[in-house]
């Protein structure tokens, strides 16, 4: 693999890049020998959470697999911004086939590796929330059910960004998209719809399911590394803010990813064989409003007459998650 010198690293957070740590405690990205699997120079928007998430996830996977990695990629932003012919940002063997079949394509790659006795090669499938929760759902469920030796990573930016921000089944209630217009008394996406894919993945009893955000990249790397070490089907759902689709500032990507977790709206946890085995506790609980206010897709909630009831319903969702997953230590809050 061609060596690309590391161009920058992240400092100033708890997460990565701290070269004052002992080498074994450093993150993948802080390593001068890291792979840069997804090269800079691709065409993602400024502040794209998906680009960030993919770079960290794949670098961690490369590290964990000893650089024996093949990736299948669904149609979507990640595919389009990384491979406009004749350019490619991928330093790993990478295949794009279709929007809805990534999980099955990865199954095929894994089967080929098994048939050839290449037990060392690890296989990743990746797609957006649309490719994962909607059109590719059947193939993904099949991959889980057969327990194929694939790590599937969903980059959840909560809509179909590549086609111009339309609703997906991962779009949260009240969020405005191009197909959930701000008309009528309850603008934005409706309550009570949508799919919770990490939970659905758990219901398949696969060996490993985890959620993560791009605000805690060290945690993300840890989970990818762990998943690569497990044989069978693995699923990681990464929360990746999209400045363009959400109407958020490019510099707020990490902040939004932190707020979604700290509010309880996006529980960060791990599950093995269908049972939650660890949760990332909320450090400093915030009201959902702090998170919602930074995004134009929720702007209609904060007009002249604030949509108090709607905000309360969203808060109730966050509270429910906090109770359900035990996101706050007993007695630590309230």
């Amino acid at each position, binding site marked *: *693999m061609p060596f690309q010198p590391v161009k920058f690293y992240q400092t100033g957070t708890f997460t990565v890049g701290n070269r004052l740590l002992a080498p074994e405690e450093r993150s993948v990205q802080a390593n001068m020998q890291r792979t840069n699997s997804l090269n800079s120079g691709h065409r993602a928007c400024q502040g794209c959470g998906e680009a960030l998430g993919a770079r960290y996830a794949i670098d961690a996977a490369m590290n964990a697999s000893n*650089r*024996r*990695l*093949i990736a*299948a*990629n669904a149609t979507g932003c990640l*595919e*389009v911004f990384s*491979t*406009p*012919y*004749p*350019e*490619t940002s*991928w*330093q*790993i*063997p*990478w*295949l*794009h*086939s*279709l929007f*809805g*079949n990534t999980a*099955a*394509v*990865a*199954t*095929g*790659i*894994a*089967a*080929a*590796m*098994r*048939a*050839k*006795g290449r037990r060392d*090669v690890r296989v990743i499938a990746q797609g957006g929330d649309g490719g994962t929760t909607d059109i590719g759902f*059947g*193939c993904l*469920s*099949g991959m889980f*059910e*057969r327990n194929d030796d694939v790590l599937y990573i969903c980059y959840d930016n909560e809509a179909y960004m590549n086609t111009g921000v339309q609703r997906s089944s991962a779009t949260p209630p009240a969020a405005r998209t191009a197909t959930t217009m701000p008309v009528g008394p309850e603008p934005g996406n409706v309550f009570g719809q949508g799919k919770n894919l990490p939970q659905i993945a758990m219901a398949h009893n696969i060996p490993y399911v985890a959620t993560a955000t791009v605000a805690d990249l060290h945690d993300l790397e840890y989970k990818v590394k762990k998943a690569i070490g497990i044989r069978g089907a693995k699923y990681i759902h990464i929360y990746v803010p999209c400045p363009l689709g959400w109407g958020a500032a490019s510099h707020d990507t990490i902040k939004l990813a932190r707020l979604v977790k700290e509010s309880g709206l996006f529980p960060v946890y791990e599950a093995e064989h269908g049972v939650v085995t660890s949760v990332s506790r909320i450090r400093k609980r915030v009201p959902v409003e702090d998170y919602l206010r930074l995004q134009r897709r929720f702007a209609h909630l904060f007009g002249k007459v604030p949509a108090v009831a709607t905000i309360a319903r969203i808060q109730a969702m966050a509270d429910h998650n906090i109770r359900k997953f035990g996101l706050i230590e007993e007695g630590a809050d309230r």
Partner: protein
Amino acid sequence: MSLKQCEGSRAVAEAVALCRPEVICAYPISPQTHIVEALGEMVKSGELQPCEFINVESEFAAMSVAIGASAAGARAYTATASQGLLFMVEAVYNAAGLGLPIVMTVANRAIGAPINIWNDHSDSMSQRDCGWIQLFAETNQEALDLHIQAFRLGEELSLPVMVCMDGFILTHAYERVDMPTQAQVDAYLPPFVPRQVLDPDEPVSIGAMVGPEAFTEVRYLAHAKQMQALELIPQHAAEFRKIFARDSGGLVRPYRCEDAETIVVALGSVLGTIKDVVDEMRDEGHKIGVLGVVSFRPFPLAAVRDALQAARRVVVLEKSLAVGIGGIVSTDVRMALSGLPLPTCTVIAGLGGRAITKASLHNLLHQAQRDELEQLTFLDLDGKLIERHLQREKQMRRSGPLAENILRDVGVVAARIA
């Protein structure tokens, strides 16, 4: 040479196994099921090794798994029919665009609605332009042989190949076949060396997005590769003959065409019946012949023209319908004959498994000999049924589901309706 009495499906499964596939993935649909059941059994019993048999949740996944496996350098095989082929269409085009030499058996079957499991060619014909090579087998022996040739051809060109065999008529028929030995197949079919492969030691990106600056060129190359297949198919057939000591494959297969005034063009198993009719009519003194098309894609324009040009008339008999115009194969045949003053008639026959009888063919070909055949004929069409339905439509604003009404007229459900 080892002669073996077996079902067509079994013959194909064994031929595929002799080709040493590494990944097999399929979803059941009649009349394809026996092929993949047999292969599944061979893989699970350890008889076929190393090979992975993947059970999937749909045909779309089956083709997708084959795509992944092929891109990762494995010889990949699948089989389907009818609704299954339609369900996988997006991935079918993709396999061709990515240049992956997957081999797929299509056990030809009609497409619903109305649902019908019997044989015609509507399914594979719907994929006429998908970029796959399409070979049609006349007999079980040929089906077996074409699979071996398909892997060789596909892998040499980096193109997927469909082997079409008539559902039930071939797949479920017990016939004697000459089963090749592993040594013969190994001598004919070298191991798969992919043009481009997903390999951590030499990473490549496959399936990038291509804009207007190069898309036409990419599509042109897809066409050019099929044109290369026109050269390779006869060469491969000749080589096949040397190793296996029998004729199989090729672009077209003429039968008693030399001095024929009327030549019938057809694909698949119906060629056997037509040949019998031709023999009988020859005995009566009619100068008549038949041209079997093995390679439907690429379509061998020159070979078809050569075989037909001395005739006085051409009848294309096809088991599929291009609704709104007529025949699918006919269009290609007419293109092959363009500029020649050769009247060409289309006969739509055998749809949804309707038997194509010798009696009907005799009748039809006598009509052709007298130049009384219309441009478009539906063989054995029940005019009375059609008339009744049209009458009904005139009387009612809504006539209800067409198929059910026709069945009632036929009397199949009369008891229930009364």
